[in-house]
């Protein structure tokens, strides 16, 4: 079994495949979707719909070398204030275009480092949201935090704002790795961040880890996992580091010679999975773990898990309205992404224009394929009959044959499933259903 897997990792490990947080992946968005579509699509939302809201804050106090997000280092508070005011203006612009009232069921602050807005800044944005939208009674209110900046007052302030879920970017707890990725945060910092948050009453904690980082080994990552386990997080996510130095200047400072190869990456991901599953966590999709009583774990077990830009969600009908530079909205008609350049974003809002820069209008075929890809990514199974008769998917069947021959995929008439051995390779199986032509696949991260 181990030998067979090694052989498969060598064959498939180095391949470049999208992570399918959406279908089509954001790389396929184009400027053919813009402000007009965004307006129309917002108007199509049914009044009273439950929506998720994403707020993007593209600033950090310092830049981590591994970061692949849209974020910038900022030192002057005026810059942050100006951005926050614009974010609120965008909320008003969008609110004027929807049939009120929409109900926010989930709220997610991402970045960047959203807490850089400060408690007053965060409150001001929330007030703007509250003026235009209803908040669901059971609102899930989540924020991404950098453990280095979590103080007792911040934790208490966040709790007072209604924040009830926090994702802490842990990445790795090994000194050498932390140095190599430019993010030195000793375990004690992480532990006190967790303590402050729990003390403040924020119980739902996600800890985010990474594999594939420079100098990481299976042993070092296991040590990180053991420490993380001692904090009893509700959820853990572990993403593969995507090294794209040609696109991300900060990543050029990472010594690529210190990066683990495809086989090592595969083993690291497996070591993480073993650590958490052997300690009572349920493996969710490709890279998440949760305690069995966590809603995400329950959604996973009942096959109602969904994929979104943050990874996995138990949100059953995801409509995502996103604010901020580079933020992506997921509307029933399609995807819209705001312009990533902050200056252009600020100007658009100043001129009272929606800052939509690119997007994608979904066709019925895209939806069917998207459903299959999402179902594979979430549940490791898919019903191919939504593509129609088998004659409509002969090409996919042909491309699946090698994966079936390798024991990664099983097919029983129109129902397809990843085998236990095949799960780590689910993105390859999903790619079989991806109709988008892309001559340059180097912009995607490694398949495992």
């Amino acid at each position, binding site marked *: 079994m181990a030998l067979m897997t090694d052989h498969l990792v060598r*064959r498939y490990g180095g*391949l*470049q495949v999208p992570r399918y947080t959406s279908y089509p992946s954001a790389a396929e968005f184009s400027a053919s979707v813009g402000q007009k579509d965004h307006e129309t699509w917002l108007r199509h939302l049914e009044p009273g719909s439950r929506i998720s809201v994403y707020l993007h804050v593209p600033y950090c106090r310092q830049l981590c070398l591994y970061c692949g997000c849209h974020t910038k280092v900022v030192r002057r508070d005026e810059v942050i204030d100006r951005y926050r005011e614009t974010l609120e203006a965008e909320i008003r612009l969008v609110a004027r275009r929807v049939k009120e009232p929409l109900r926010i069921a989930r709220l997610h602050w991402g970045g960047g480092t959203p807490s850089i807005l400060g408690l007053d800044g965060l409150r001001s944005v929330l007030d703007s949201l509250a003026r235009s939208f209803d908040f669901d009674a059971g609102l899930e209110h989540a924020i991404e935090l950098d453990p280095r900046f979590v103080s007792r007052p911040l934790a208490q302030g966040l709790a007072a704002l209604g924040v009830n879920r926090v994702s802490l970017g842990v990445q790795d707890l090994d000194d050498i790795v932390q140095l190599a990725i430019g993010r030195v945060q000793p375990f004690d910092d992480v532990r006190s961040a967790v303590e402050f948050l729990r003390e403040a009453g924020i119980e739902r904690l996600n800890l985010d880890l990474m594999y594939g980082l420079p100098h990481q080994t299976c042993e070092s990552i296991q040590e990180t996992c053991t420490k993380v386990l001692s904090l009893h997080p509700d959820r853990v996510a572990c993403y593969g580091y995507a090294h794209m130095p040609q696109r991300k200047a900060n990543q050029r400072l990472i010594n690529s010679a210190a990066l683990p190869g495809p086989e090592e990456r595969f083993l690291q991901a497996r070591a993480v999975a073993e650590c958490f599953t052997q300690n009572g966590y349920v493996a969710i999709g490709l890279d998440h773990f949760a305690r069995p009583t966590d809603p995400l774990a329950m959604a996973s077990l009942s096959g109602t898990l969904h994929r979104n830009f943050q990874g996995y969600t138990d949100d059953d009908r995801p409509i995502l309205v996103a604010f901020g530079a580079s933020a992506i909205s997921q509307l029933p008609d399609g995807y819209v992404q705001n312009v990533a350049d902050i200056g252009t974003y600020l100007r658009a809002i100043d001129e009272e224009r929606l800052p939509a820069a690119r997007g994608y209008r979904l066709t019925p075929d895209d939806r069917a394929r998207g459903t299959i890809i999402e179902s594979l990514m979430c549940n490791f199974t898919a019903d191919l009959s939504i593509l129609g008769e088998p004659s409509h998917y002969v*090409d996919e069947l*042909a*491309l699946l*044959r090698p994966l079936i021959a390798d024991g990664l995929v099983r097919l029983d008439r129109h129902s397809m499933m990843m085998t236990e051995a095949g799960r780590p390779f689910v993105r390859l199986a999903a790619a079989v259903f*991806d109709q988008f*032509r892309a001559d340059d*696949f180097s912009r995607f991260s490694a398949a495992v």
Partner: protein
Amino acid sequence: MAVCSALQDDEVAELERAMSFVRLESNTSLVEEGEPRRRVYTLTSGLLRLSLALPDGRRQITGFLMPGDYLGLADDEIYAQTAEAVVPSGLCSFSVRDMDRLMERYPRLRDRLHLMTRAALRQARETQMILGRLAPSEKVASFLLHMSNRAAAYGRPESPVPLPMTRTDIADYLGLTIETVSRTFTKLKTQGLIRLPDPHSVEIVDKSRLAVVAGLTVH
């Protein structure tokens, strides 16, 4: 040249006396469909595209000639297909009359040409197999394997497979759209079966799995 390999030195010398060289620029035609068959050709370098005109004015590409292949051997009084150079190409040519005369004199040459004709027919059968596949991935995969096997049969590497023709040529040959051909190349690449080092060559990474996709071997 493949035809000479069965012959003695004096026979080769005789053959060379009857032979002339032709150089073709890209996109110039060597023979047209329906022309009287006066000469037989063998390709020494480059690539030729074979096609038939359809009644509605479209063309069906029926195959590609690669170095070592013959043209005109299996035809009757007229050329059955148009042959054009895809890239600058070199050919050896014999008049049909000289060829017949030499074959009378040298039975080994006759045997050799007989083998060549059979090879051409085998290729035609393989082409039918490719075109008879249902799925685009099956068609493209079997096309790549076919080109690779032919190159190997002439002692050239199995991979990378040179594809100097355009994606349109490949699309016309396989009866697919250009978009489908491009997408299929990408899909085969994503699955780790081929690599595309440049637009005009395909590296076969995993021949046996490519054959599984082609539906040519059972798994």
